[in-house]
């Protein structure tokens, strides 16, 4: 929309020609200048500029919908009003049906906690036929760290849905719907994203998994600001992909330890800040999600996987539709199993903290191990 040509907007000929003569071709060029700047540039009176800008704005402006029509559209057209059920009852209830369509869902946690397992299970669920609660579609799995294990995928399938997978040829069909990409660098990833956009609607793709986002920038830059800006374009692009195609997008993220300089306070919170300085030992054992605060704002749903006293938990740390609940889980041969469907509600810093205590006893799959 931003790149729409001014010549095609139906402006009166005289003014349209002036725009073109001064190299203002697209709506983006025109709207990036204030009205006085345009007046100077085009040598045209203010009244004409105002009406031209109003005309361009009206055309470029996105159409509106009432919230009611939005809801009705989703209920009618989409599976479960736009959710992919994870088959973990407690989590599905918390998320109003499952992983929502059209937005970014992030899985973050320390190494070996089960993020890739979750992604494998989700990929399987998306490829299942609708009668078994799946989306009956294709899955694009972007595997940056080469953690995708097709053997494990089939194992999960056979253990969770024996009726389907023991039928002849079904395993091949289900696994055949999952397309794995292995970009070696950020630029390859960028290219494949653009190709994905093109093939999204054609191939009935119903889920996009990126495992993991953090691995794409680790090794390219050092800590700090550069990492945030590198992914800026990708974040917007992936979000718009998710939205216009109305598919769920699941992205995994790594953790890093919280450095000494990081406080999470405002200038008016001076008292708690002083306490935090005295309490530095507490900070050293804390993990935070990688990719920075800009990324944290961009994801819509953040699921944190962590380990406390040897028990793994999956908690809904950020979600516009659910309270902050934590569910204990284990990894079994059939994927992830919640030990309790009633989550415990969390408050305050517990919601965002990522714990990694007592996490040595993990199951090895395809080479995942805790360092």
């Amino acid at each position, binding site marked *: *929309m*931003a790149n729409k040509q001014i010549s095609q907007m139906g402006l009166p000929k005289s003014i349209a020609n002036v725009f073109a003569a001064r190299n203002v071709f697209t*709506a*983006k060029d025109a*709207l*990036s200048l*204030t009205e006085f700047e345009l*007046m100077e540039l*085009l*040598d045209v*009176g*203010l009244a004409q500029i105002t009406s031209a*800008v*109003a005309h*361009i*704005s009206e*055309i*470029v*402006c*996105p159409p*509106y*919908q*009432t*919230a*009611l029509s*939005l*809801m009705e559209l*989703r209920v009618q057209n989409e599976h479960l009003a736009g959710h992919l059920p994870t088959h973990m009852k407690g989590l599905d209830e918390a998320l*109003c049906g499952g992983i*929502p369509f059209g*937005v970014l869902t992030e899985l973050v946690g320390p190494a070996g906690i089960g993020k890739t397992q979750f992604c494998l299970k989700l990929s399987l669920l998306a490829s299942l036929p609708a009668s078994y609660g799946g989306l009956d579609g294709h899955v694009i799995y972007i595997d940056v760290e080469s953690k995708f294990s097709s053997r494990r995928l089939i194992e999960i399938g056979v253990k969770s849905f024996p009726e389907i997978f023991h039928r002849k040829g079904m395993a091949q069909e289900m696994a055949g719907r999952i397309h794995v990409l292995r970009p070696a660098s950020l630029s390859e990833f960028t290219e494949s994203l653009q190709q994905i956009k093109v093939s999204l609607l054609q191939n009935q793709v119903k889920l996009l998994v990126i495992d993991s986002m953090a691995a794409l920038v680790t090794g390219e830059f050092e800590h700090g600001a550069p990492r945030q800006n590198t992914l*800026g374009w990708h*974040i*917007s692009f992936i*979000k718009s992909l998710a*939205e216009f195609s109305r598919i769920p997008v699941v992205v995994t993220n790594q953790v890093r330890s919280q450095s000494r300089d*990081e*406080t999470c*306070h*405002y*200038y*008016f*919170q001076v008292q*708690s800040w002083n306490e935090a300085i005295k309490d530095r030992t507490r900070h050293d054992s804390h993990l935070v999600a990688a990719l920075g*605060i*800009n990324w*944290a*704002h*961009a*994801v*819509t749903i*953040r699921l944190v996987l962590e380990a406390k006293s040897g028990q793994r938990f999956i908690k809904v740390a*950020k979600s*516009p*539709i659910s*309270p902050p609940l934590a569910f204990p889980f284990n990894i079994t041969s059939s994927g992830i199993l919640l030990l309790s469907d009633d989550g415990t509600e969390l*408050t*305050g810093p*517990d919601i*965002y903290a990522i714990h990694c205590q007592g996490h040595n006893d993990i199951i090895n799959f395809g080479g995942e191990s805790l360092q």
Partner: protein
Amino acid sequence: MEVGRLPISASQRGKLIAAGYTTLSSFSSLSPSHLARDLKISDNEAAEIMRVASHSRRLDGSAGGCGTVNGAQTAWDMLHEEEMFPRITTSCVDLDNILGGGINCKEVTEIGGVPGIGKTQLGIQLAINVQIPVDYGGLGGKAIYIDTEGSFMVERALQIAEACIEDMSECGGLLRKDFQACQLKMHPNNILENIFYFRVCSYTEQIALINYLDKFISEHKDVKIVIVDSVTFHFRQDFDDMALRTRLLSGMALKLMKLAKDFSLAVVLLNQVTTKYIDGSFQLTLALGDSWSHSCTNRVILYWNGNERYAYIDKSPSLRSASAPYSVTSKGIRNSASNCKRIKMM
């Protein structure tokens, strides 16, 4: 007044100066055709220049004469006007108290906070609370929700709408036992119908939309709140020219202020946070830079204080700096549980 300050194109200005007209009074008594001959332009153009000149002259205030400046309003009139428009409640009594009753119409309020603190929740709550009927102390208006991040979830809006109707019916039962006519017939779908949702995918669309809102709101006069969630997102990714960003943001802020004033509606802008290096350490601050922080009339920061969510009035011409706790429940924004107050309805 110098000819250089007239809003006319550069070539017209150049011709005026070349022909010797440097002040307004020098050509204001001429006829358009005389001016046209002098400047060698068409009659219509000359008439246009004269019209612009006389308009500017009027705005400047005449030398001898009325004593009041055109376009100004006395402070007394403004006070009366303010009292006419009720504020939009946030459904949390403590928060309403520090805001002086709620979000003020005719002003731009910026609300910022870390991810997950409840900005979108507050935005959705306000979009629903603006629709509370006048009989129940609300504005009975409609809402425009501009979503730049895709964080508006319809299921949540439905939940909050249902809870709002429940609260109103309860309150209606308590206060208006004799008022049979005022039966609450609102259905959550009616509430959802009155939220106009725009999804913006780039900063160009954001600017275009804000330009277009003038026309849209003239056609939908009962819109009483415009929520932008969030105003930051598209200006944070991938912007190379920071000076351009500042210009665009201030242009946008001015247009929003004008909208708020012209149509007497509330404008709520949700902002993200970033870290800033001050005095040897990193501190949290709202995004978009220092120049933007001057643009909004009121500024509220949402933050975590221990286990509770708090709101802090960072900047306001009429409200004291204060903080208040609030909580996000399945019904929306409500009082913080630890305060144990019953929600007092308007």
